[in-house]
């Protein structure tokens, strides 16, 4: 019974649109015609898009692991003043809307970046102007920035609970630091590393907002091409073929992820607090210092530059961008006052959160109380939308939701799409908590005389209460920042903040750019506030896979 709502929701808003895409891809004229598919797959441009998507995802994943694994050690095993705050800060990029990440790197890597300012200061007029916008480097950097937290949280989470005596034992037995890492820590961490690598690969393979803003000709992922085929070329069969291609790749990656996480659950772990210690040797201090520097440069500087640029106007520093963002501005390129985009975002985000909590909460409960295969099936089915790209969802809504009700023009589509994206995160937050409730607690309460309802109220609810709040904050952050699906289904007169930012960035002029920066800053602040509120609850599952 618990499953009715999730099944209807998933069926209507996920399975049906995706089936329509498959149908459109395989049978554009009503008959199955594999020729279309074959032609698209042999097409040079499709193949080069697929190739670019694949290699940038692989390189992004490898780079992220290389940078973030040392960071995971520093943040999970070393103790230093401000560690908790920094740990929360590095998680911020993970919930940042992709559009904001794109904007931040535009500001950081453009000709007016602080890097160039520094070059001019040092070299004077002879300084070359670095402009890394619309390069692969920009995309890769943004991906590392975005996914750093995934690896730090996932690998660091396990690392902080590995018995440090295992590493000590290896050292005393005569192994060097590096050898100890290679032969003891690395094998023990491999499930977490593999799981986070799979997730990072998935995220970067389906990267949309970042690539749309930072990429350019020849630097488009499948996601971006689906968008282009739909909105510019109006070639729906091509878009469907691309979406199919993507779906296959994503399902394979998810299968690998599922396999890896199942393997992960058999280690003796210790309390995290007991494994952290201040750096004591010179080598340990160097290691910590280097990682802190990486975090400052890679994670904090884009955010700082974003905020700084929101105050840059045509006539120097000022509050113009913010004034025009919050006060009615008839000269804006948006169809509506910028303030309305903010209002739309908050409204849609709140509705989406409620929907995701109901659907995800029911599904998680069903997965906990259900037996055997139901539990596993629900668990896995709800992970699929996580991997299925947002663009596929948005595109699917566009071509499928004219039946049974024509929802295509409805503003309801936006929160529904956002809820669909957020639901897997709700499930992932609630499920471990629900499963961790010791049945003996309920038994003890019952033996002490509590009725079943009372047991639920006094045992289950207080325990999952915090997890529910976490799930709510997390869904809200995701919904507010959602771009891939929203950009397909948002009506021109009801833009959300990410959509408005994208439109502003598409127009020339310092004023538009500044306003985009201001709106990005505001959006970043909203999502970061949601995240930091969660972090205070210390359930600690955000960004951990």
């Amino acid at each position: 019974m618990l499953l009715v709502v999730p099944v209807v929701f998933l069926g209507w808003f996920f399975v049906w649109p995706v089936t329509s895409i498959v149908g459109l891809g395989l049978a554009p004229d009503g008959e199955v015609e594999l020729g279309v598919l074959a032609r698209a797959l042999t097409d040079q441009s499709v193949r080069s898009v697929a190739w670019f998507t694949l290699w940038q995802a692989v390189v992004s994943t490898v780079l992220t692991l290389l940078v973030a694994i040392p960071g995971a050690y520093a943040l999970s095993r070393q103790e230093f003043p401000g560690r908790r705050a920094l740990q929360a800060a590095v998680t911020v990029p993970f919930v940042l809307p992709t559009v904001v990440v794109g904007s931040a790197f535009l500001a950081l890597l453009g000709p007016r970046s602080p890097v160039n300012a520094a070059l001019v200061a040092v070299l004077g007029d002879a300084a070359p102007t670095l402009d890394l916008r619309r390069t692969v480097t920009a995309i890769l950097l943004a991906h590392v920035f975005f996914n750093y937290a995934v690896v730090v949280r996932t690998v660091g989470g396990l690392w902080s609970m590995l018995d440090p005596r295992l590493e000590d034992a290896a050292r005393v037995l005569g192994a060097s630091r590096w050898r100890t890492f290679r032969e003891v820590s690395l094998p023990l961490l491999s499930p977490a590393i593999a799981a986070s690598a799979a997730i990072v690969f998935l995220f970067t393979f389906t990267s949309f907002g970042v690539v749309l803003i930072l990429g350019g000709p020849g630097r488009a992922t499948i996601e971006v091409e689906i968008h282009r085929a739909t909105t510019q070329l109006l070639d729906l069969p091509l878009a469907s073929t691309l979406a199919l291609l993507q779906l296959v790749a994503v399902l394979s990656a998810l299968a690998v992820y599922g396999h890896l996480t199942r393997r992960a659950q058999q280690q003796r772990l210790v309390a995290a607090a007991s494994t952290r210690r201040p750096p004591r040797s010179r080598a340990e201090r160097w290691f910590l210092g280097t990682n802190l520097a990486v975090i400052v440069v890679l994670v904090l500087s884009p955010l700082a530059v974003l905020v700084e640029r929101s105050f840059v106007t045509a006539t120097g520093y000022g509050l113009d961008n913010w004034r025009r963002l919050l006060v009615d501005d008839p000269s804006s390129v948006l169809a509506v006052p910028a303030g309305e985009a903010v209002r739309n975002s908050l409204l849609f985000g709140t509705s989406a959160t409620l929907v995701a909590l109901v659907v995800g909460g029911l599904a998680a409960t069903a997965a906990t109380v259900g037996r055997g295969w139901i539990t596993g099936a629900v668990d896995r089915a709800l992970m699929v939308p996580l991997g299925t790209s947002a663009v596929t969802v948005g595109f699917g809504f566009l071509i499928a939701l004219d039946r049974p009700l024509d929802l295509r023009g409805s503003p309801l589509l936006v929160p529904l799409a956002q809820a669909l994206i957020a639901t897997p995160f709700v499930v992932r937050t609630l499920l471990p908590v629900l499963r961790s409730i010791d049945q003996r607690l309920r038994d003890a309460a019952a033996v002490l005389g509590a009725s079943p309802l009372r047991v639920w109220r006094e045992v289950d609810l207080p325990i999952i209460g915090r997890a529910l709040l976490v799930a709510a904050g997390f869904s809200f952050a995701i919904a507010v920042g959602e771009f891939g699906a929203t950009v397909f289904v948002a009506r021109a007169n009801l833009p959300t903040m990410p959509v408005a930012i994208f439109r502003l960035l598409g127009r020339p002029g310092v004023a538009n750019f500044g306003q985009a920066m201001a709106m990005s800053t505001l959006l970043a602040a909203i999502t970061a506030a949601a995240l930091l509120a969660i972090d205070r609850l210390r359930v600690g599952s955000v960004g951990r896979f």
Partner: protein
Amino acid sequence: MLEIDHLTLAYDDTVVVEDLALTAADGEVLCVLGPSGCGKSTLLRAVAGLEPPVTGTIHLDGRDLAGLRPDQRDVGLMFQEHALFPHRNVAENVAFGPRVHGLDRDAVRQRVAEALSLVGLSGTEFRHVDELSGGERQRVALARAIAPRPRLLMLDEPLGSLDRALQTRLLEDLPRVLSQLGTTVVYVTHDQDEALSLADRIAVMRAGRIEQQDTPAELWRSPRTAFVARFLGLGPVMAVQADADTVTTPWGRVPRAEVSDAGAATGTVETVLLPEALRLATGHQPPGDDELAVTATVVIRRFQGDHLRLGVDTATGQRLQVAAWRGQLPEVGDEVTLAIEVAGIHLLADDPGG
């Protein structure tokens, strides 16, 4: 030979070991005995190079260990709860040390075979460590620690995580293994039975300092302070008046020259009855000339199989423990006569820790 001098260790500004001096001679089994939290594990970690000392020196066979990394020190450490590598089987765990020391494959295999045979686990090479029983895990950990042939072997509560029956069995086994090795051994435990049955010498540790170092027999015969006496399970500790010539006990005055003395001052000093100093007097064996006769009432009677363990309250108000053997089986409430050997009244030195 291990020589530790003026060693001070701290954890995040909390001093856990203070100005400690300790030596272990070649081939000696030195037990460090102390309650949990007294700093004994930290001491081992410092010798292994896992904790940097605040001050002090550690020499092993004349070599100063300062500045050497753990992998350069040539010491073996068997961890509490064993810390076996969960991703490796038995042979791979034991082979780790010889392998990282750069031995070739045949030599490694030989070392593994030797170490496993020494602990009586030959034939378990390919078993996974998760499948091992507690006692087997303990022995694999020992084999792993000795396989690189360290100059010094340190064991941190090696029997701590095992049940009592298994502890007893391994305690019978361990002295053989240790003597076959011939290595200098530092053995840390909080269990006085373990220390008494294994050690050539025992160092009793308390709150980061060594309270007394002696052979087990000497320690048992002459505990220096009330802390040591209590830790060995002697008791009760009570206050008596002692001047230069006489000691005034609750049961009478005795010449100071006849009691056992750990170097007590004069005035109010603490005292304890040594084991075997107290017996139940009977018609066949009345209190002798060298014994004090004390009347007491039985308040606790615990059956121990071959004897009774009695708790008695003396007329002067002390609760004492005494064994009652065959032929003398008083009930609770009965009045009995105790015989206290004067030479077994042991005056304790001033207790610095209070």
